[in-house]
């Protein structure tokens, strides 16, 4: 089967332009899917945008869910319009109708810029500085993508991207070697250490009625619960009074995962 876009003499400019259109189409497509799904489900975690919007508006004194619904619908509408025009641009681009692709991409860019501008205004109102930075960065990336896309039209290049056989063979062999080494390491780690995801940990007595538990990075709530169960079995005469989680500034950077101390007293 011959795919229209896949051409042996495809210039680097065309590949980058295709990548830009593909990236933004997929970006908005998954944002819409995230809105349609709403919460978490099998094979999709996403982000609970309704809860996020609801909390934002409630913090500003607007507790009705309809306000959050309306805001979310407006956001979803803008995202859908951006997606449809970007997808249209991608289709036209694949069909080599570059003028139409440019116009459709431009409309998609405008919808994207409007969306991120509105989000940034919201971030100011709700005082979320991290999201303000995130949305400003995306706003800029959109603008930058458009300029790069247009700029790549101006100097068409017809570079020869083909490699000679020796280069292909060498890079192929090197890649296969690295893939085998990396995969073996990953599989070996999985075989030898996956138990850390599920198995209970031992508690180390550090002083009278104080026990330390050092979590591996793989540990989660299951490990925590099993550890408490093991502790209760190992020390049936102790009652847990308090669990002290060592705060991050007291841990060794990156080397320490979760550490907590179990503080007990003797059962009467």
């Amino acid at each position: 089967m011959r795919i229209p876009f896949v051409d042996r003499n495809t210039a680097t400019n065309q590949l980058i332009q295709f990548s830009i259109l593909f990236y933004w189409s997929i970006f908005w497509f998954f944002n819409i899917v995230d809105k349609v799904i709403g919460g978490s489900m099998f094979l999709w975690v996403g982000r609970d945008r309704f809860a996020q919007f609801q909390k934002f508006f409630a913090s500003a004194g607007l507790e009705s869910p309809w306000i959050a619904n309306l805001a979310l619908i407006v956001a979803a509408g803008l995202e859908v319009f951006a997606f449809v025009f970007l997808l249209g641009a991608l289709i036209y681009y694949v069909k080599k109708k570059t003028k139409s692709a440019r116009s459709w991409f431009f409309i998609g860019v405008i919808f994207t810029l409007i969306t991120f501008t509105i989000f940034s205004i919201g971030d100011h109102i709700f005082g979320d500085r991290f999201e303000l930075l995130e949305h400003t960065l995306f706003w800029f990336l959109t603008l930058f993508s458009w300029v790069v896309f247009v700029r790549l039209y101006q100097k068409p290049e017809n570079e020869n991207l083909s490699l000679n056989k020796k280069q292909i063979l060498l890079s192929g062999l090197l890649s296969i070697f690295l893939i085998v080494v990396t995969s073996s390491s990953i599989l070996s780690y999985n075989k030898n250490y996956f138990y850390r995801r599920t198995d209970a940990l031992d508690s180390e007595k550090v002083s009278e009625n104080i026990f330390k538990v050092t979590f591996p990075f793989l540990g989660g709530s299951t490990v925590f619960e099993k550890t408490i169960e093991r502790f209760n079995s190992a020390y049936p005469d102790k009652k847990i009074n308090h669990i002290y989680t060592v705060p991050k500034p007291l841990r060794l950077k990156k080397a320490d995962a979760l550490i907590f101390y179990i503080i007990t007293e003797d059962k009467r």
Partner: protein
Amino acid sequence: MKEKNILKFMVLFFWTFFWALSVLDKIIPDVNYLWVGKDFFALFVKFFGSLGLKNPIFPTLALAFVSSLEALNFIFYLLALIQFSKRKTELAQKWFFRGILTSVTLFGLFSIADQVFGDRFQLLEHGLFWLILIASWILYKYLSESDLAILSVKNKEVKVAILISIVLTSVASFSIIDFSQNTFSNTDSPVEGVEVVKDVYKFDFPFLADKRVWEKTINQFKIDYPELKINYIYTGPSELNSKKKTHLLLYVFTEKM
């Protein structure tokens, strides 16, 4: 309409609103109805306090200086937007440049302060804003000098795109409303506990839950298990949560009375 004019308008509009709301945030320092914002005064007090400058005059003066620069930024961008709307593009570019210059200066000062106060995350944040401002200016200038493409799309195709968009938006809207109706009760309903270890109950709080849900959950638990005495409540740290799936894990340690 020329593509570059639309984009230049978007750039000016974004930065005008950015600074307008930053100034407004300084005018409304506290949380109010329809405005949350950020408490910059508290932030400045803590920063200066960490340097050993406990007198509130220092953060007050610093905040007043920052607010003045932000107000100046806003005025420059607003003037650029007004001139651009009047089609005085050269004058608009001059005002935009003044705005960029003062904004970059402000973020430069913020970055110096971040180094002094040792806040590396804010240093990254301000460094990125600084970069985006400079890049915005370069892009604005590039747009001014670029070709004069006029936006042209076929009416029929646009109509089809709008129709598809409306259908997709309707589908998304139904889904959003349905999800909202199904989950909104999470803002007000107690969470049900699961006994994971003998006398230890786990509560998986949904993202929508807040302090009122916590109170209702504990009260409900006491009603459901009158024979149990709560010894201790442990808030599961983020390391125990499956990424993003749960907002909060709570463990209640009990014993029989």
